[in-house]
């Protein structure tokens, strides 16, 4: 079975739970045979998708404003980016929009974008409605899920969706077409803003 390494970059304001999401994703199916990484900033997990093995190399970024300028070093070459916001913090959703903008301008052209509204277990304190976020995600053709790293809700789903949207290695059939459509979006946008 073919093994593909997929670099996935985690973006989002500090404190929204980026690393918790990854931690949950990786640790849930902890396999002692696989060498653990030295820390939670960089983690890997291999999942099977159709007839391929997808090895996610997950690069966490520091969400602080002061480190923001370093982000390009982290997201370059990423196959996908997961941008995380906190559903109980409106501000983190605005930051997310900035990340989307930046990725469009400077990110890899075909990067698969996933938006994760974390802490959905804290529905009482919600500041960002699911509909608003979903609409925004649709407008940029991004994957959207509300997650809870704490209660392990929708964590695996994010990555499964990413696997689906990653263009298959062999350029054939419908999957390629699907990927293609997604890919075209960013470049169109870019052209218009020239």
């Amino acid at each position, binding site marked *: 079975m073919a093994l593909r390494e997929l670099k996935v970059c985690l973006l989002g304001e*500090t404190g929204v739970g980026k690393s918790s999401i990854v931690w949950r994703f990786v640790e849930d199916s902890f396999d002692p045979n696989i060498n653990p990484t030295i820390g939670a*900033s960089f983690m890997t997990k291999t999942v099977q998708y159709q007839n391929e093995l997808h090895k996610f190399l997950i690069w966490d970024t520091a969400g*602080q404003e*002061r480190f923001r300028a370093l982000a*390009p070093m982290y997201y370059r070459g*990423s196959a996908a980016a997961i941008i995380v916001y906190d559903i109980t913090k409106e501000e983190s959703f605005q930051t997310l929009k900035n990340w989307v903008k930046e990725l469009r301008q400077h990110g890899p052209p075909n990067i698969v974008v996933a938006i994760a509204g974390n802490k959905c277990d804290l529905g009482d304190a919600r500041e960002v409605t699911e509909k608003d976020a979903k609409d925004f995600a649709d407008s940029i053709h991004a994957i959207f899920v509300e997650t809870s790293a704490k209660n392990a809700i929708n964590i695996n789903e994010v990555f499964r969706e990413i696997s689906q949207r990653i263009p298959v290695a062999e350029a054939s059939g419908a999957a390629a077409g699907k990927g*293609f459509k997604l890919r075209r979006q960013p470049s169109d946008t870019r052209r218009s803003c020239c």
Partner: protein
Amino acid sequence: MRGLEDNKSDTASSDRSPTEMPNGTEVAQKPLTLLDRLRLCQSAWALGGPWDRDSIHTALWGQQPGSFLVLLDSTSQPQLLCLSVGGNREHVKDFPIQRSGAVFHLLESHLGFSDLVQLVAYYSLSRDVLPVCLFIPQRVFNLTQETDQDLSHLGPKFWLCLSSNPQQRNVTPPSTGLSMCSIQVTSANGALCVINPLYLHEHGDSWLIEKRSPQSSPSSVSRPFAARRERRLSTTRPWKGAGLRDMRGPSLDHESSTSPAACSVPPRTRPNSSPSTPVVLRRASQSSSSGSLKGRGQNRLSVDGETSSETTPVGSPVPQSPHRVSWIEDGIWLSPPPLTSLLQAPSHELDSLSISSLEEESDSAPSPIHVHSQRFTLVLADKVKNRLSAVGQAIGGLMSPQKRLNYKAQELSERKSGAFAESVKAFVDKTLKGSSCCASGSELLQEVRTALSSLREILLESPEIQLLIDSLGDISDLELDGMLELAIHKVALKPVCACLYASLQDYRDRDGFIERLKQNQHTMEGQKPEELGGAMGVGLPDAMVLEKIQQRWDSMHEAYSPSKKVQILLKVCKTIYHSMNTNSTPGAVYGADDFLPCLTWVVLHSNISTLQLDTDYMMELLDPMLLQGEGGYYLTSLYGSLFHISSFRPRLAARQLSTEAQHSLSQWHRRRTLHCNRSRRTGNRRTIRRPASREVEAESQDGAKLSDCSGEGSAAELPSLSGEETCETSKEILGLLREEDDSWDEAPGEVRWGCDRLSEEGGDPQQSAEAPETLREKPTGSPKKEKERPHSELRSRDVLWTVPEDISAGQLDKNKVTLDPDRWIDGEQKASKLATKCLYSA
């Protein structure tokens, strides 16, 4: 050193009277072993009776690191190993000694010993779980048998009042190897295998043999493998190994009556016999533990190819945790480390005790030990060296594949008029001579990186290397690339490393970067991690850990191989994580939000200019394939930290980097993509790439339209070529191409050029997939036409680099396909298909 020294004297004596040794009849004349010596003065260091933990601690207070005493319990059984560690806070540490059955071991370790003396002797050579090796005072080595009776009343005063001059120990080296480590095997470059007999007793020796034929299906490959081995044996000097068996046989028979000293004679200096005789290494006998090791005569370690293919065991391929086997550099084994290096740099620590983890490390740094070992190596007579090397060859299977590859690469690089040797020489000469011609340090390093990649290709093409690779069995391309890379580092990078650093320093001094970095370091030094962006409540490295980190940085600086450096960087990062987790809420997960400020804090408390040079070195010279993984991540973080510091503006909002910094970042980003030429073990994959380079190159002649087409294609236009078709077509076309144009074989640079170009333009699979449309619409020159273009144009990497520059400077910026090294593999596969399709349609 000890072993080698002894070995020398053994050689001399065995030349004179070879019959002297075998049955240990001349024991009385042999010098005392370390074990004997330790036994003689056991009362001085193993204390019972009135002594307790506190009094021992008091006695050890102020003693040099490594000083130790053992506390016995009321039944005279060892209970506690108290060790002076020389730390700031805790000077003496306790390590409980446990007894399970007949075996003594430290509580935290799984290495068992049949008595206390052996345990102590072992830990004086290898620290395992201890922070430092045990220090055996010089006096002990001056003991003679005659002093025996005087020793019984000696107390710890004798033990601890030691001469302060550690060097003296080398004047009267302690005696022959320890019988507890019964198998002592050296290879030509000095890895020493120490096997605990208790381990063998427990697990047999099947793993040892298994190790040397790592193929997944031994039966199918053992024959040619064995044949190769035979040939190798016969081409080296006839090895005198069989004498070993002659000698060892009797010693087994007289097991109970044989003293440890007689049996511990190293196997390397045995007299002559035919090389085809099976060589059997067997554990030496141990009078002290013979009772517990009944029947071990069955545990033969067969090292001969034929024998082993008959006896290929079904056992587990590697030692199963928790039992471990130590491979120890002879530098460490042969003499207890000098005082100054008791707290050694980590590269010399027996940190993991894992197989092969240490093999390379003696190369890395001119530490005291290293200098030491070199000195003694030089002193060794050629004869001895050859014998050592013959032994090494004979047990080649015990060597790691990496080591074998290194030897072979070294050999090839020294071979007169060999292609590889000449390339290496040319590279080294050029680098040593003309390193100042580049505009910047990174340009210099890029050239070096390019050269390293070419050298790797050349090495890979050598038939001897191919043969070696085949014999290694099932190794993934990725692993193989890493191994080749390390081998290249050794032959090519090692000689020029110091020179490169000097140039780097020069460049960085001139551009004032280091100056700025240091200024900002000064400004930021006092900031707490919270001020650096970290969250409250995250642990920080304390002074002791920081000290340890500094040592690691030092050894990182000393390593010449960028891959090794990154390994050490990972150790540092692991230490930082460890500190973050101590004193923090349990179960907290620390991601980059917490790690980066912490790393920045550590960097601010380190030698920042050296760190910057090391980072430059690693960033540019590391195999691009490794940039995506864990090493790449933490290297990026280190680079980011340094950048953050260098661009720190106290008054400004820290939001934006200076334009200069931004520019530099994107430069780096772009550059790294261009080196993603990946070496391949098989020729045909390389040939598949060849047409790709031409076609794309041809296309670029038409005005580099590739970037334009990115948004224009659509899924419907994509030809639906199945993988199989593609493959077949490509084979046909390749056949044609190769006939037409053999000159491609002479210009590997062009191949990469084209691929680089392709990866740059269509840095990921999707882009590449779109490209055929354009190519098909604008048919380009045939390969023959292509050939007419001057090669100089094709070869120039400068041309390559200017392309993105133009794009970024010009209007195309928004359309520019971002460079994408991490999809290189995919891009490459696409590239070959793309080319095939183009040719097909043309």
